[in-house]
């Protein structure tokens, strides 16, 4: 039983006529995603990769009763588009843009809470129900079905690790990109809960990084509520304090958010922390074998 999305999830692409939007529409369709419509104000009536384009999200929802939306647009326009998606009743919103202002992101999350909607991102690669549907920008070929759930704060590093799993013939149930920003909609705990409930998921990989306290909170949750094995990889061990390492959230500030604090918390919670990306598959194999 897939979590969040499955092969029947009806997806809109907001900002479908842009370069990124149109390219990834094609990629998502190729993966099997049910893209039912696109939105691009002023360009209604066109079609992209065979998908009809509408002037407003309301209009697209009226025609296609969509449930999810993926957003491609410059950051200054993300809030308006996300609010429109939420107001139009969509329940899964994947925010691809990076550099969304923090206060905009907080307002989006507050409105999503009111609407009981799930926001993935911003600054995420999206999420994929392996073999079923992807709403995101991840390369298609690495995401093949299997028993492992993956949740990650970063993109390419996640592909790297999923790539190692794939090489080792270990597939995934669902892979979720939380996004690299300080304020994002989904956190490790949200996804870990879903994996715990998902009968298809036998083990979990979490890909964390320095900054914030999401990994420490996840550790507390795992210790108290997870029965499935969790393997972690954490990036940023070598990062000096006070330097933001690309991601808005990846910074050691005021002594908080260090690699050591995260690794220690996770280890205490029974999570095996891999010291290298390639160390993840053996740990997963052991975990799966121990079941």
């Amino acid at each position, binding site marked *: 039983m897939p979590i969040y999305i499955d092969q029947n999830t009806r997806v809109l692409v907001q900002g479908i006529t842009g370069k990124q939007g149109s390219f990834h529409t094609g990629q998502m369709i190729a993966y099997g995603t049910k893209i039912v419509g696109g939105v691009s104000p002023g360009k209604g009536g066109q079609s992209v990769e065979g998908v009809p384009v509408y002037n407003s999200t309301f209009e697209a929802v009226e025609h296609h009763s969509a449930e999810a939306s993926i957003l491609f647009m410059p950051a200054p326009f993300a809030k308006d588009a996300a609010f429109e998606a939420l107001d139009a009743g969509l329940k899964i919103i994947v925010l691809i843009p990076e550099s969304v202002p923090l206060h905009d992101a907080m307002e989006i999350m507050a409105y999503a809470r009111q609407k009981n909607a799930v926001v993935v991102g911003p600054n995420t690669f999206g999420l994929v129900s392996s073999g079923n549907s992807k709403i995101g920008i991840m390369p298609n070929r690495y995401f093949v079905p299997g028993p492992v759930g993956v949740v990650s704060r970063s993109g390419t590093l996640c592909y790297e690790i999923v790539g190692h799993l794939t090489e080792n013939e270990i597939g995934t149930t669902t892979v979720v990109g939380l996004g690299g920003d300080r304020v994002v909609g989904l956190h490790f705990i949200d996804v870990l809960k879903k994996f715990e409930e998902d009968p298809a998921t036998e083990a979990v990989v979490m890909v964390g990084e320095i900054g914030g306290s999401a990994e420490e909170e996840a550790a507390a949750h795992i210790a108290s509520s997870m029965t499935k094995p969790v393997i972690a990889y954490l990036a940023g061990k070598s990062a000096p304090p006070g330097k933001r390492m690309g991601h808005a959230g990846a910074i050691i500030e005021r002594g908080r958010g260090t690699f050591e604090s995260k690794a220690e918390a996770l280890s205490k919670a029974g999570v095996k922390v891999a010291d290298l*990306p390639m160390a993840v598959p053996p740990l997963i194999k052991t975990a799966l074998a121990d079941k």
Partner: protein
Amino acid sequence: MKLYEYLGKELFSQYDIPVPRSKLVESADQAGQVVGELGEVVIKSQVLSGKRGKAGGIGFASDFAEAQKEAARILDLKIDGLATEKLLIEEKIEIEQELYLAITIDGSAHRPVVLASLDGGMDVEDVAENRMIRWPVDVTLGMQGYMAREICRRMGVTGNLQKELVNFLPKLYRMFRDQDAELAEINPLALTPDGLVAADAKVTIDDDALYRHQELPRITEKTALELKAEKLDLAYVELEGDIAVMANGAGITMATLDMVQHYGGEPANFLDFGGGADLEKTAQSLELLLGTDPKVLLINIFGGITRCDVVAEAFVRVKENKGIDLPVSFRLVGTNESEGRTILEKVGIKTFTSMDEAVRHAVVLTGTV
């Protein structure tokens, strides 16, 4: 973007938040003259460091000579490696009580959070957990009167100080929201006979929202090279080592640095040239790295949106135009991998498919292991 104290206080004034009377000066003589206007003064280095006080960046004076001397001393000081360019000369205020007050963003709750304590003057980490009140703010509600009253109750604040704080907090929140701040910290927040006064100001503006604040000056803590990278829209951070690292994605770049260190090497930098960069941007990234004079160049590409052939072509172009005369360790997998490999082989560059091997090779190339 961190604001200098004086800029933070200028913002405070716009929101009717009381600050001490002050003058901004750039020389010891100017500092001396200000004493005449303000009487007894505090002289404060305007540097972006949390260690200013401990490093001697604050002085006191009550006449021309004293002020001149203290100002000169501070202007000569290096604080956290930073020189002082401006001094804020403030009237000395009569402090009855020192509070701590801050609004910052709690990422895990995706909300602002107010931090308030009666233990002002201490570092935020040093305040006992039960003495630091945390109030998560619902952004759809903002900071309303009753919330300020409730924060006071939890702090154990009553009477006049409560009235002052209930008046003060909504103003600070409005500033925080309107100015797209990610931090607004006042430590100490001073209770004086005339009411609450912000004795210090640490304000950080969200870089991603700066485009809507054209009126704010641009302040940078970046090096010249970091600034150059910023203009090229690259995430670049200078480090101390000798292996220049370039990868596509913040997480993978961090992981590459970690692995370099794991195998005994020292990275010279963090350079994430992002996903889906074109030939031009990729070439510029390479040129930037070569300009830092590293011993070894380590390129780690896991192509998703990023196309391996584009990266390879960019490499060849830079090699041909500018020359790349240092050893290179190149990892290349993903989208258009074989095309990329062919292009590189033509110019004699061998590539790895494993990140692990590429990193180990780079460390070996430094000759330090």
